[in-house]
Structure formats: C-alpha cells, structure tokens
C-alpha cells in the first residue's frame, strides 16, 4: 500500500478523510476489514473493485448511514476538525412522489430562489420537465435529478455510489461534467464505478477494494499504468477477480 502524497498548503479547504482499522461485521460475516486510508487530495477519488468487495458499505460508513463495528474514521477540513457538509448520490435513485422541482426544493437547506432551483435543473437538462412527477422520469433523468439534488445542498464532500451504472451515454456525460465542475469549485468527490474508462476520465486517485479490504491506494496514473497488486492487475485486464 502506497500513501498518497501530502497535501499542499493551498488545498487547505479540501476535506480529508482518514480511517483507522475500520471494520464492519454483520451477523458474523466480516464485510469490511481493517480499512486504514488517508484521502487528502482534491478532485475525485475513485473506488474500484469487483462486486461484493464492500465499496458501497465503505462509503455508507463514511457518510454515516451505517455505523462501523470496529475502528474509527474522521472527516474534516485540514485546518480544523469541524464537521463538513456532505451529500450522497445512490446507485438506485430515490425520488419523492412529487414534481421534479419539488424534489429539488425538498433537499434545499439554503432557501434558494426559484430561479436558482431552475438553474440547477438547467444544469442537468431537466428544466423543461420541472413540473412532471419525478417518478415518471427515465433512469438517466432520475439520476441527473439525484445529482442536482445532492449539489443543491452545497456539499463540500460528495459520495457517489455507481451513479452512472446502466445509464444512457448522454446522462453519463452530463453527470461526469457536473462532477468535474464541482471538483474545480472545491468539492471533494468519492466515486464508486465499475467503468474503468470512467475512472480514467475522472479519477485523481484510486482505492482498490477486494473482499472488504483495501488492496491498493495510489494516484490514478500509477494505478492504471503500473498497478502493484496482482488483483488490481487482473481487474484491469478484465479477468474475474475472486
């Protein structure tokens, strides 16, 4: 395991994530084991790994949806350890049974003007559907709305659990562009994907998980050109990793 390079001073507003021996055991089976990572870089941290590796469980732990059974973790700004606003986009979009714009408004903690909400919908190409029932949208549209909803909360840290799995290419493009844009504005993203191309396009560093353990954590360039572990190599070669 390689520790990524130390943060530079101008990244002091970037949230960092630190875990120490994090573990999760549910009904006797160990799903996450001894996870110790330090994420201090800006941009998008990709989490890769085969199905069942524990990727979703890890970000749910970090986001506070599941309490780990062992170890501890910390999320904070570099300057001081205060809590920071975070949001999450789920693999399966969860939308309320109301209109598109009302879904956005539901999550809005900052009492945005209607125009601001409409701009947010414009950014995900949903403005003309703003008064439609959200549950009637296509899968790609639903996920775009989910991302818009996550961003309207103005997070500093954004967790994304395979948001683009089985979406149409246009929706994938919109979502990736928004993530990049958010990164430029100082939002730290942790992004789970099965799409190696996507990981190459977005990732600044990669955490490779297998069987509930961190196999490798390195910067993206190194990971894709020269992975250290046998499992990561096999995964990148498209082999089945057990």
């Amino acid at each position: 395991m390689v520790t990524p390079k130390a943060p530079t001073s101008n990244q002091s507003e970037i949230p960092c994530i630190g875990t120490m021996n994090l573990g999760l055991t549910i009904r006797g089976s160990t799903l996450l084991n001894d996870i110790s990572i330090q994420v201090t870089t800006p941009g998008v941290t990709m989490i890769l790994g085969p199905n069942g590796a524990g990727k979703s469980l890890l970000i749910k732990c970090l986001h506070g949806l599941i309490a780990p059974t062992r170890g501890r973790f910390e999320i904070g700004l570099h300057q001081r350890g205060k809590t920071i606003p975070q949001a999450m986009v789920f693999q399966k979009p969860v939308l309320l049974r109301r209109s598109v714009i009302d879904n956005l408004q539901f999550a809005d903690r900052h009492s945005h003007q209607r125009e601001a909400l409409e701009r947010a919908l414009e950014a995900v190409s949903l403005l003309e559907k703003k008064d439609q029932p959200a549950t009637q949208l296509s899968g790609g549209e639903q996920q775009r709305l989910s991302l818009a909803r996550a961003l309207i909360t103005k997070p500093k840290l954004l967790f994304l659990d395979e948001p683009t799995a089985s979406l149409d290419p246009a929706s994938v493009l919109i979502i990736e562009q928004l993530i990049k844009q958010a990164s430029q504005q100082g939002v730290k993203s942790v992004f789970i994907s099965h799409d190696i191309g996507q990981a190459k396009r977005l990732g600044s560093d990669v955490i490779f998980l297998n069987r509930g353990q961190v196999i490798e954590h390195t910067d993206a360039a190194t990971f894709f050109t020269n992975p250290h572990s046998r499992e990561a190599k096999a995964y990148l070669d498209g082999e089945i990793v057990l």
Partner: protein
Amino acid sequence: MPDSAFLEAFGLIATANADLYEILWLSVQVSITALLISVFLGFPIGTTLAILDFRGKNLCTTLLNALMGLPPVVVGLLVYLALSRSGPFGVLGLLYTPTAMVIAQVVLITPIIAALTYQVMDDLHREYRELFLSLNIQLPKAISTYLWDARYSLITTVLAGFGRAISEVGAVMIVGGNIDHLTRVMTTAIALETSKGELAIALALGVVLLTLALIVNGLVTAVRTRARKYGYT
C-alpha cells in the same frame, strides 16, 4: 324476486323515502365519525411502528395484524359489557346511542387503518430511510413527508376502513340496539327486515348499501389509477 327488490330500491330512493334517508344518513354519520377517529389514531400508530426500531416491534405488528381480523360480534360484546350501565363506563349512559356504535366501529377499524398504514409506511421508510439520513432530515419533516408521499395509498386505506365500517352489522346491532329513529342504520335495518320476512325491502336496502360500496370502490380505483399514472404507487 330480485327484480321487484331493485324496483323497490329505486322506488324508495325516487320517492325520497324519509325513513330511508334517515337510516342512510345515520349510517354515514356513524361510520365517518368512527373513520375520522380511527384515522386520527391509526395513522400515528402505523407510522410510529414503521419508523421506530424498538424491542418487541415484531410482536406489535403481529398483534396489530391479528386485531385486523377482530370478529365484529366480539367487539360488539366487549363494547356492550364496557358501556352497559352495570359496566365500567355505565355512568356515561352511552349504550344504545349512536356514540356507542361509533365506539364499536372505532375499535373495529382502528387496527385495520393502523395495520395498512404500517405496511405503506414500512415500504416507504425502507425506500427513503438512507436518503433522509443523507439529507439530515429531522423526524417531524420526515413524518410529514411520509404522510404526503403515501397519500394515495393512505386514501385507499381510509376508504377500506370506511367500507368495513359501513357494512358492519354484528357490533352495531349489539351496542346500538337497532332502535328506530335513534340507532337504526343500513345494516341493522336489513337484518330487521330480513327477520320480518320482508325480503324485498331488505334486498332494496341492500341495493342502496351496495351502491354506496360501489361508489367507495370506484373512488379507490380512481385514486389508484391516478397514482399509477404519476408513478406514485
């Protein structure tokens, strides 16, 4: 025979038979009052059970589902014993009044409303729980969101409760006494006319009750169709 009953039914309605309207109006009054109280009790019970995690939750839901099947005559008997002048609440003088019938129907349909609400809310809670945690939604806002987002299912639940209340005879017969111009409702009137051998009138009243049931079911279907149209099921 059924033909003459239908003719009689329409005759009763067309001639604006005062007794019929009195009975029908009392039926509706009693059942809607009982329904409002049951909704007031059943929604919070069902929602609380769905949202909160506590020891004995399974026992509570099992009990609630069992109570759904309470036989009306047993409810009638229990309410009768409670309200009888020599019973614990006898001093209130409620036996053989519409209020007694309301109480019996509340006992009967509150578990139904609560159990159906629980099912609806439990499904919704499983779907929304992580989102609400993620968005840091506080409990009061979460509950009002559940109630609003489950609105179509809850309307169906309420209509189901109403259907059960208005068509019930065993309990209201015992606690109401089927007293003319005081506690006679559609179902007890049907029972009385049947016992008098006036089967055509009984069937005519049945047709009126059936019409009411059809209207309620029509509303349920309309609500479901609308919900499905929006993808809000």
